[in-house]
């Protein structure tokens, strides 16, 4: 049994020299025990007592050529905290003699295991570069920056060049439980292991940094899993900003719903260009092809009225005359609607009038175009526009004229007879009323029924108007 003693846990050069000698002597991996200093790195080290035998290898023997890929792998994997790392690497090196292409076989169990070690080390190196936090202290020579860091693997020396290249003009120290590094602006020195207490307590800039951390967090999107995957808790204790996390998360939900409630309460403004936004929306809708109704129809009949209207009426769909005119509610039903509005004391010019479906759906019958009821798919396709109009106007009261409008606004089938005459809540929280479509009044055959239904319609409008307050 050969015992190899390395000078430090990250003594990669020592491992390489020893491995070269062992190979030359044809020592099989299971006949070698690796240890660092006095500490055994192997379970069987204790049985292998006694002075190591003198190297016997023949200096004249040709050195084995090792693929570059293996050296890169070994340089990283050898820094892992796993006590078996040196033995594993020697085992792979041993196999490389017979199979030089082993480094390509990433599916081999041993190669895979070593690659996993190397990956873990590379990650730790990267995280150290990311999570070291310097604190500034002043001494006779000016400012000095000191950090306390606890890496997972033996990576501190391997990482020194990065910090030298980045902070060459600063004086800094990185203290770790294994070794400490000191840079004086010209040369790097190593010091003994340090303790957390050796590092300074705080730095006034940390408060500014924490302010930044809290402000850059978007409470409307919480993804704790992603944060923890990339910034595991083991690093938290040395990062000042992480102290804020519990509080930020605790208040996030409340902050987001606060924003929504505020928007709902209509405290917010549309801004100067509400009209411009509405015109853009109308232009966009004029080219709408979200359902097939655009094909036979003459044009999109978009809503009409001031963008600051407090009352919004939603009808079913444009009729024959609306389709030609490009305006909602100008045909026979529109005339009934105008009359009823006047009777209820509402000025149409102050309201916004639109339709749930914005293209005329019809069946040609000879020279006439007979109104056809839009189906659920068409209502759904057009709902996007009505929702946009609703969002832009944020009316205090929305009135659904007929079942199609109610379906579009509420997203489900509503029974007019049961729901009319009282205030309802839209899914977005706004107030809404449901009544019949004025064309329903035109279709009633009985004169008396028509009169009484008309009165009821006017009464519905009056109640909805009164709800404006």
């Amino acid at each position, binding site marked *: 049994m050969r015992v190899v003693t390395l000078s430090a846990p990250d003594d990669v050069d020592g491992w390489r020299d020893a491995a070269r000698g062992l190979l030359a002597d044809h020592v099989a991996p299971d006949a070698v025990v690796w240890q660092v200093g006095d500490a055994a790195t192997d379970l069987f080290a204790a049985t292998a007592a006694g002075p190591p035998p003198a190297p016997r290898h023949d200096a004249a023997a040709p050195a084995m050529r090792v693929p570059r890929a293996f050296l890169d792998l070994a340089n990283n994997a050898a820094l892992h905290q796993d006590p078996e790392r040196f033995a594993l690497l020697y085992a792979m090196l041993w196999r490389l003699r017979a199979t030089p292409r082993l480094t390509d076989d990433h599916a081999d169990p041993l190669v895979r295991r070593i690659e996993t070690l190397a990956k873990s080390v590379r990650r730790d190196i990267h995280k150290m570069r990311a999570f070291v936090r310097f604190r500034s202290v002043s001494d006779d020579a000016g400012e000095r920056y000191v950090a306390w860091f606890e890496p997972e693997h033996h990576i501190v020396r391997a990482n020194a060049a990065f910090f030298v290249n*980045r902070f060459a003009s600063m004086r800094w120290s990185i203290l770790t439980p294994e070794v400490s590094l000191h840079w004086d602006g010209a040369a790097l020195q190593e010091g003994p292991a340090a303790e957390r207490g050796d590092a300074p307590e705080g730095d006034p800039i940390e408060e500014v940094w924490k302010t930044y*951390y809290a402000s850059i967090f978007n409470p409307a999107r919480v993804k704790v899993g992603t944060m923890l995957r990339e*910034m595991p808790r083991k690093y938290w204790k040395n*990062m000042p900003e992480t102290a804020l996390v519990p509080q930020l998360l605790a208040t996030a939900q409340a902050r987001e719903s606060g924003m*929504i409630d505020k928007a709902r309460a209509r405290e917010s403004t549309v801004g100067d260009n509400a009209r411009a*936004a509405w015109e853009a929306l109308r232009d966009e809708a004029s080219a709408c092809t979200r359902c097939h109704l655009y094909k036979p129809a003459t044009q999109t009949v978009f809503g009409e009225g001031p963008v600051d209207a407090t009352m919004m009426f939603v009808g079913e769909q444009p009729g024959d005359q609306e389709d030609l005119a490009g305006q909602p509610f100008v045909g026979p039903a529109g005339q009934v609607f105008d009359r009823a509005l006047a009777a209820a004391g509402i000025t149409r010019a102050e309201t916004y009038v639109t339709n749930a479906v914005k293209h005329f759906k019809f069946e040609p019958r000879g020279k006439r175009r007979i109104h056809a009821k839009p189906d659920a798919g068409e209502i759904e396709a057009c709902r996007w526009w009505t929702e946009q109009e609703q969002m832009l106007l944020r009316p205090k009261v929305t009135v659904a004229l007929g079942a199609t409008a109610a379906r579009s606004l509420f997203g489900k089938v509503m029974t007019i007879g049961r729901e009319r005459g009282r205030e309802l809540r839209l899914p977005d929280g706004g107030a809404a009323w449901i009544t019949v479509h004025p064309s329903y009044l035109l279709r009633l055959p009985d004169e008396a029924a028509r009169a009484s239904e008309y009165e009821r319609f006017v009464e519905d409008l009056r109640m909805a108007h009164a709800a404006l307050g």
Partner: protein
Amino acid sequence: MAQLDVRQKLEILADAAKYDASCASSGTSKRTSADGKGIGSTEGMGICHAYAPDGRCISLLKILLTNSCVFDCHYCINRKSSNVRRARFSAQEVVNLTLSFYRRNYIEGLFLSSGIIKSSNYTMEQLVEVARSLREDHHFRGYIHLKTIPDADPELVHQAGLYADRVSINVELPTVGGLRRLAPEKDGARIEGAMGEMKAAITDTADARTRYKSAPRFAPAGQSTQMIVGADAATDGEIVRKASTLYDRFGLRRVYYSAFSPIPDASAVLPLQRPPLMREHRLYQSDWLMRFYGFSTDEVVAAADEATGMLPLDMDPKLAWALKFRDRFPVDVNRAPRELLWRVPGLGTKAVKSILAARRWRRLRLDDVARLTVSIARVRPFIVCEDWRPVVLADRAELRPLVAPKVKTQQLELFAA
């Protein structure tokens, strides 16, 4: 306005900047300050110095110079009609803040944007001045990302490219209609024109550097852009197509997708609720498929639902594509070309590379593939190996329950009281 100290300004101006998704510090030229002059270094790979609870990386000091703005874009928290508190940093304050954060290893550099004050040129001058001061007065070698203003003088934009590692202009919304409606003062054509000019400048200097070593570097980390998802009518299919055009036409390094999120003091034009964050994630995945997995735009769009044009939220787009085109599978890991292996759900580019290297020497078995992947159970139905053939699986009419991720129950609160 009462005088605000730097910390109060930072609170306002970082808050205002957080709706920009990009925080990348990667892909630039390699620099160090080993000469002892100045400070900072960059590697090819960026470094994320912290993560916020929103899962986003904090790599750069991401702030606005000012959140005052003459524009009134509805989706933007800084629009003219918004009631947010306004603040303005001086160039010197930004420089000092950047350096003091950098020295403590909090950041990789600076990402500076701004609301538009006075004029586009004036604003752009201010941004360039910060970058100039960092680079020339302090020899700062860290990363700088500057947002450029579409209407600014080309000479100013050019200077920005000389100081910055990356420059970006946001296209903001995936559809022209959406932009007209939500940002009436912005002009899609002008934004794209500016991106085109930027591309030309980047190509020109890269070309010059192949001939003259002394030619200046110009935005070595290229340009990027951002689109807001969920504020207009665009479907995933349309967004993917738009992104693909942007990559092709302007040679962008990255297109960022930002799920629209409610902002304080929102304009009434905006939807109240955010779209699911998963939608943003699925768009990034489809972006990856196009950039690294050899998927064409049409193929990614084919993974979306035909009726709605939306990518499925409950599985990644690659799996959705594979389930839709079952006839392309199984793929033989010992024979199939790279392009076909890339299409196997559960095999990443790294695993594919390893498979290609290993199979030159021996035929791979299922155990071998298992060592290269996270979950062999997901991969199994789609591959053939030396000792594996998904006979029964391939005949199953419905593969979905086998490979689709389990629907998670509501995520538990980590810090629940």
